[in-house]
């Protein structure tokens, strides 16, 4: 728990700053737009429909889409104006959350202005107000309660959705939820959920109090509530500025599964304790987001796998060759084509494997993937989100001709339990996953050698490799230090024993010293 709370101020202030900034921009866009629409009843339905359509895009997808969108924008701006737009982290999260916040504010601004008594509008004109005076002295004050209700809705939505900005690399209370779900740390999940809900509640109430103060002309109440909001914003911004001003730490990335959390904590601990270098975690990122972040310098170090790099980054075709040959080729081509350094091969492989309950496989007489193909039409496969879209799966289907009765994607944290409980028959497992042994599962042999080798390699981004060759050398010390059995044990300690990735990483490093 202590370890959880250690990052609380950072996550909370980041979450708050992100949410307040998105709300402020959304209001700055939506209110004038709503006023404009309020005066153009014919344009209103079309624009409201567009804003409504944006709202129906699943929030996670909208956030993820902002990454390539900002990257494309960055290409344009760097060519035209000579500055880069950061495609991961704060930027895409802010852009997506702002879009989310616009709709309720826009809708309520339009509805609030439309709800103003026509007699009041006529009187406002009749006493000699200009259109601007009619708006500021009569229409906006009368529409204010409805507009504020929209702002409050937006606040709750934005604070809630901000928890999903973790995978695009913006820190938030969602970091607790994402890493907690993957490592079965339900205390972390609860902390993330409860504190995000609490934050939404506080913001909603504070905005409501400002509105009540204005409506009832209670200056003290207005000032207190507005002061509270401003103080929250300033505190969050200062906290974030302070952390940005501290000596630039080495940013260590992680994808969204247990092994990645352990390895990223392990690398951080290794660099901090053994080399005295400050580090900062950036966890729960999508696979391709993470590599792009490494190349652009937003992440400095993370662990990836040769097979993944070969297929997704180097666009390799045909047979990848042996483990050693692939490692050599990946090392050489990453350096030459991407400027990315392979600092160490950790010594284990984490390949994709199709796994079944051992007893079930025995009773059906399945030991290899060829055996599995014969039974596939009676069986159901469950896979993580990526797997069914990956080239490995295409290659497996192409070679073995799998035709499963049903294939469904599910969260990797649920997949293993699902096959153990018999809800699906086969899963796409990771060969180092501790749950394979723990739940009595068996990985089927790839008898025709379709799945490429997946050596775990520590990658170092171009900037860090250039500025700190000593860090690259230091990381080289991990070469070959973790074998597959060790990695399985570390994973099992987290997944089955309920220890935190940081504890497990530290304990293993202690055995090294």
């Amino acid at each position, binding site marked *: 728990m202590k370890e959880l709370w250690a990052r609380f101020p950072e996550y909370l202030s980041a979450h708050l700053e992100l949410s307040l900034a998105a709300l402020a921009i959304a209001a700055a866009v939506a209110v004038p737009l709503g006023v404009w629409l309020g005066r153009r009843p014919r344009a209103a339905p079309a624009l409201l429909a567009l804003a409504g359509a944006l709202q129906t895009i699943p929030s996670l997808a909208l956030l993820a889409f902002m990454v390539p969108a900002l990257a494309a924008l960055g290409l344009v701006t760097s060519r035209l104006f000579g500055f880069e737009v950061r495609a991961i982290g704060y930027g895409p999260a802010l852009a997506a959350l702002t879009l989310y916040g616009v709709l309720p504010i826009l809708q309520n601004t339009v509805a609030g202005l439309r709800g103003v*008594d*026509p*007699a*009041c*509008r*006529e*009187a*406002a*004109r*009749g*006493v*000699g*107000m*200009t259109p601007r*005076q009619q708006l500021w*002295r*009569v229409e906006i*004050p*009368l529409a204010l309660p409805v507009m504020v209700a929209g702002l409050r809705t937006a606040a709750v939505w934005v604070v809630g959705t901000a928890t999903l900005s973790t995978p695009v690399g913006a820190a938030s209370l969602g970091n607790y939820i994402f890493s907690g779900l993957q490592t079965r740390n339900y205390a972390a999940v609860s902390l993330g959920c409860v504190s995000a809900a609490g934050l939404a509640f506080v913001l909603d109430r504070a905005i409501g109090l400002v509105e009540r103060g204005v*409506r009832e002309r209670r200056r003290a109440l207005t000032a207190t509530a507005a002061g509270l909001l401003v103080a929250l914003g300033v505190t969050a911004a200062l906290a974030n500025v302070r952390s940005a001003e501290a000596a630039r730490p080495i940013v260590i990335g992680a994808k969204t599964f247990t092994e990645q959390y352990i390895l990223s904590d392990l690398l951080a601990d290794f660099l901090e304790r053994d080399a005295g270098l400050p580090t900062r975690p950036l966890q729960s990122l999508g696979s391709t987001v993470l590599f792009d972040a490494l190349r652009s310098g937003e992440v400095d170090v993370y662990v990836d796998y040769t097979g993944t790099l070969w297929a997704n980054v180097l666009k390799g075709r045909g047979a990848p060759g042996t483990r050693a040959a692939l490692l050599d080729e990946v090392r050489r081509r990453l350096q030459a084509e991407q400027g990315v350094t392979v600092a160490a091969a950790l010594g284990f492989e984490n390949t994709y494997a199709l796994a079944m309950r051992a007893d079930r496989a025995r009773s059906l007489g399945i030991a290899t993937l060829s055996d599995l193909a014969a039974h596939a039409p009676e069986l159901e496969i469950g896979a993580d989100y990526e797997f069914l879209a990956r080239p490995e799966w295409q290659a497996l289907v192409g070679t073995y001709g799998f035709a499963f009765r049903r294939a469904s994607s599910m969260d990797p944290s649920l997949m293993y339990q699902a096959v153990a409980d018999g809800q699906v028959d086969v899963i796409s497992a990771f060969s180092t996953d501790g749950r394979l042994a723990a739940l009595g599962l068996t990985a089927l042999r790839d008898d025709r050698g379709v799945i490429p080798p997946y050596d775990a390699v520590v990658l170092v981004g171009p900037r860090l490799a250039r500025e700190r060759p000593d860090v690259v050398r230091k990381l080289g010390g991990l070469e070959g230090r973790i074998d597959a059995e060790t990695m399985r044990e570390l994973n099992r300690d987290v997944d089955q024993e309920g220890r935190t990735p940081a504890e497990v990483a530290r304990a293993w490093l202690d055995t090294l010293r």
Partner: protein
Amino acid sequence: MIELERVSKRYGDVVAVDDLSLRVADGELLVLLGGSGCGKTTTLKMVNRLIEPSGGRIAIGGRDTSGVPGPELRRRIGYCFQQVGLFPHLSVADNVGVTPQLLGWDAARVRARVDELLELVDLPPDRYRDRVPAALSGGQQQRVGLARALAANPEVLLMDEPFGALDPLTRDLLQERFQEIRHRLGITTLFVTHDVAEALRLGDRIAVLDVGRLVQLGTPRELLLAPASEAVARLMDTPRRQAEQLEALLRAPAAEAD
């Protein structure tokens, strides 16, 4: 003085007001009388340009209104209408003082003027100044509406069925009170109504309109004695018919009442 010269208003092919010429003399109250859709409200609103005329010329005090920006024009014209349209978020004092404020009067002068007007419409300022409109009865709201219309010493006053939504007793009281105020201030007024009795009671002269055209213009007495058409005669006769029905009821056998 309000002058309308060959004024018209068209909405596409529909003619709401057709070639209308009228003159309201200084200090006079002219009633525009007619049924719904006769163009009386449209005519009234063209005077303060809440509605822009399609053709013709309107002058107030001899000055053409078309050259003056609408808001500036309306600050010189009192405007009072049936729904009153008090601003619910402002106090009674702020409602009454709105036009003087728009004209840039200083706060003390606005306050003095507000109190003066609240006295005029029989709402003691000490009790009513700081109330909100929602805390007032319909009749009190209309009094505040009248005070607001008169606040900036307007050259002319436009009233659109101002007493139409009030109960009969309140209406009667306000009509009487308004007549006193108007005579005291000597303000030139254009007054729209469809209530013949009200027109007869308040109007110095009455203009009867039908589908956007002027049918007859004259004093109440002229209209009663020499209606220009059968329709005007029937219209002007309505109060008398109602009075006769009343008398008939009173003469009915007393047994029925027991």
